[in-house]
């Protein structure tokens, strides 16, 4: 709808002017938690038939704002209006009945219900009869392409299907306003493109207003009429997507400069013909020499009940190497990390670390002692302990070695913010700082191999720069690194060698530089094969 592309007036002014009764409105909304201000006088206006994007760094308050708009969080000041009716303070189910429905990043289907029953439920709560609910569910399922899967248990759906089912469920509630929470998270770029079409189609068909919360700038650019930017509890811009991307303040606080997304390291030049399918690989292809790799994984398979999380995956990390494993969400990356660290048992296959086999019997604590340290997904730190105590925990096994004091000093030198906040509670650190603490904690175990699970997850581009610079420095110091990422461009730019994993199996591998420009890789992962488009996407495609 071209109409909205020309709207640059901020919603706030609308409200002072005419009596704006239509729309989902947040007016001067403020929320604070135990002294921390999450939202500080936020205004937002979502009109019927409009697609509005909501972007901003993590910790900006996006989730809180969505919770306020759907009744899960009561604002401490300000109001929420739905088509003129003051709904502030009403419980979540009232919002749903008034026509404000949402999806969740993790789909959150009812696991023991069938997909159909999931979708029907939303109709049964919003005042429709059984047969109406049934018909509506059928319609939504067909439109979203889930017709064939309608009568299976929701727990068995794949990640992408579950995502769609969540949307179908929200649609069955006949929303006037639909809030989509990071709908593209974990989807491959090709699936994300399909999603763009779906969202537009939903808007055209249902005429509802749609709010899209996302980190994926490409999606935002393609689908939104307007974009509003939230940072540190305040709206800093509301405009068309193009304008917002150029906005100085937005760049500074969230997007970062496109040119600084490259790491400073000199990259090894591309080698001829070194992108291979797993069947073509021979053991010496990576290092070019015949020294045994530090970590070698052969035909590793992991099952969770019936689900095959990892299927005959093989990879190796040479001593001093920097290897990345990339793939979409649900591909098996975290499972791989968990298996190496010892958190899950392998069904078959071998893991050999420094010549020693790590079988199921070897517990996590022993692997840490051997020199493997995992920085888990979501930067799990101990928020009820101080920074000092967190580090002390990390050094559990190596505290009494003579090098410990030196190690602690070098870690604090590398992450000065930790020295600053040494006696403070770890829970009070920001996302980026917590990631640094997580890495510092792993380093204090004096590892020879450090595993990182999605280090860029949920961080603003600026913070991701900092993290990858740290990794570069560590690599230069001789530490072996294995990391898994959805964020392909960053990982490829930083590492020497990479594996592409999908649905539990390794599909491609090769030198990182080559992979980045190989059409086979682009096709499989990006969904289109123009090199230029890939480069453009790498600036914006900061997948959470």
């Amino acid at each position, binding site marked *: 709808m071209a109409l909205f592309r020309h709207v640059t007036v901020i919603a706030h002014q609308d409200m002072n002017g005419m009596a704006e009764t239509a729309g989902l409105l947040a007016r001067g909304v403020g929320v604070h938690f135990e002294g921390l201000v999450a939202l500080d006088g936020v205004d937002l206006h979502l009109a019927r038939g409009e697609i509005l994007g909501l972007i901003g760094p993590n910790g900006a308050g996006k989730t809180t704002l969505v919770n306020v708009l759907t009744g899960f969080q009561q604002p401490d000041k300000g109001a929420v209006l739905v088509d003129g009716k003051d709904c502030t303070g009403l419980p979540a*189910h009232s919002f*749903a*009945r008034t026509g404000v429905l949402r999806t969740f990043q993790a789909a959150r289907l009812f696991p023991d*219900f069938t997909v159909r029953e999931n979708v029907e439920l*939303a109709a049964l*709560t919003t005042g429709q009869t059984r047969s109406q609910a049934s018909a509506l569910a059928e319609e939504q399922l*067909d439109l979203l392409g889930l017709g064939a899967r309608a009568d299976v248990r929701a727990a068995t759906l794949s990640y992408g299907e579950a995502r769609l089912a969540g949307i179908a469920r929200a649609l069955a*509630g006949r929303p006037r306003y639909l809030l989509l929470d990071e709908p593209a998270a974990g989807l491959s770029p090709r699936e994300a493109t399909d999603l763009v079409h779906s969202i537009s189609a939903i808007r055209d068909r249902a005429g509802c207003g749609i709010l899209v919360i996302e980190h994926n700038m490409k999606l935002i650019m393609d689908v939104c009429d307007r974009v509003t930017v939230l940072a540190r509890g305040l709206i800093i811009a509301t405009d068309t997507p193009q304008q917002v991307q150029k906005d100085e303040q937005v760049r500074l606080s969230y997007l970062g400069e496109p040119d600084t997304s490259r790491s400073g390291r000199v990259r090894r030049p591309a080698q001829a013909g070194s992108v291979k399918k797993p069947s073509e690989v021979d053991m010496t292809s990576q290092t070019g020499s015949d020294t045994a790799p530090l970590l070698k994984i052969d035909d590793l398979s992991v099952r969770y009940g019936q689900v095959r999380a990892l299927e005959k995956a093989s990879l190796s990390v040479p001593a001093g190497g920097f290897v990345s494993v990339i793939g979409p969400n649900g591909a098996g990356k975290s499972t791989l990390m968990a298996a190496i660290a010892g958190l899950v048992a392998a069904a078959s296959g071998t893991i050999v670390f420094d010549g020693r086999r790590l079988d199921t019997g070897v517990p996590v604590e022993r692997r840490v002692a051997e020199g493997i340290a995992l920085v888990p997904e979501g930067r799990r730190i101990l928020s009820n302990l101080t920074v000092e105590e967190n580090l002390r925990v990390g050094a559990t096994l190596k505290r009494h070695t003579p090098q410990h004091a030196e190690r602690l000093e070098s870690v604090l030198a590398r992450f000065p913010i930790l020295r600053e906040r040494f006696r403070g509670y770890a829970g009070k650190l920001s996302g980026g700082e917590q990631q640094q603490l997580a890495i510092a904690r792993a380093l204090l175990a004096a590892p020879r191999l450090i595993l990182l699970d999605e280090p860029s997850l949920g961080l603003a581009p600026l913070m991701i720069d900092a993290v990858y610079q740290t990794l570069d420095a560590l690599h230069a110091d001789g530490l072996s690194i294995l990391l898994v990422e959805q964020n392909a461009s960053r990982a490829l730019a930083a590492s020497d060698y990479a594996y592409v994993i999908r649905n539990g199996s390794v599909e491609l591998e090769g030198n990182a530089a080559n992979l980045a420009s190989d059409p086979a890789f682009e096709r499989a992962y990006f969904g289109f094969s123009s090199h230029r488009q890939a480069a453009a996407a790498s600036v914006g495609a900061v997948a959470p």
Partner: protein
Amino acid sequence: MGLRFLRPYLLAIWPVVVLALVLAMVLLWFGEAPGGRQRIITAALVNLVAVTGIYIFIGNSGVTSFGHVGFMAVGAYSAAWLTIPPAMKASLLPGLPAWLVATELAPGLAVPLAGLAAAAVALIFGLPLMRLSGITASIGTFAMLSILHSVFANWTPVTGGQGSLYGMPRYTDMQVATLWALVAMVVAALYQASPAGIRLRASREDMVAARAAGVNVPRERLIAFVLSAFFVGVAGALFAYLSMVVVANQFYLQLTFLTIAMLVIGGMRSLTGAFVGVAFVSILAEILRQTERGVDIGIISFSGRPGLQEVGLATAMLLALIFRPQGLTGGREIRLPQLRMPKRKSRKERTP
């Protein structure tokens, strides 16, 4: 259209049909059995009413309630108050209001009224309690149980306090108990297939998503809570008319454990589970009870000891929790035999 509407309810009733057949067989088998045997069966059937009632709440809401035995107490005492002859009441329970003293009803009428009394108590406690979630809700129900127990055990002028309350007729026999068990199971099946039941089950699966989809969780829980209290209260009344005596201490931790054990062992998430749990535990208890008295198997003689029954039950419960936390039924209901039905084509397949 009419048939389409009824279909989910008919589907839901199927397990009850099967279980009713089982009950009918039990009735026939033990119809001529000696009185003692019949009493044991009747007691098990009363437990079935209670556990079905508890299941209506726990199974659908996912909230483990430790308080339902309190409703049994309400039902039992209501049954007592409504049927003990006025003369006895006047002397035993000086604290009772005059209209209650004067009332003397037939037990058949008193039983459902006792259920209603329990439902009323559930409504009062439930209004605040159903707003709690997770483990705080469970703790809250435990607090409710303790309050009720404390009141019943100590309000001597009204309840007889620590002593036993006599004077009730023997009304509960196998037929009556079976009838109420059937009613409870049918209502349970119909409820869980109804939109209200479905909404509550959704909140059990994922509370946040359910709220976001429009489910008023406290209200749905309250409905289940009150409905379940009715049947648990009925069970309490039936119990009073079976043992002909009401003692406050009967309705506290021991019985709570027993009923929860039955539900957990059978499977908390299905009606069939409630039935299977009651059956299993009753049979197990009976076997252990025989052992307590001493049993001769050939030349080996086991002489039992008091406490063995309970130890056996606790062990069974722990084993169930560790090895089969979903219970013997795995949370599933008895299914209709699979009929080959033509697969409904999706719209895409239908239009050329």
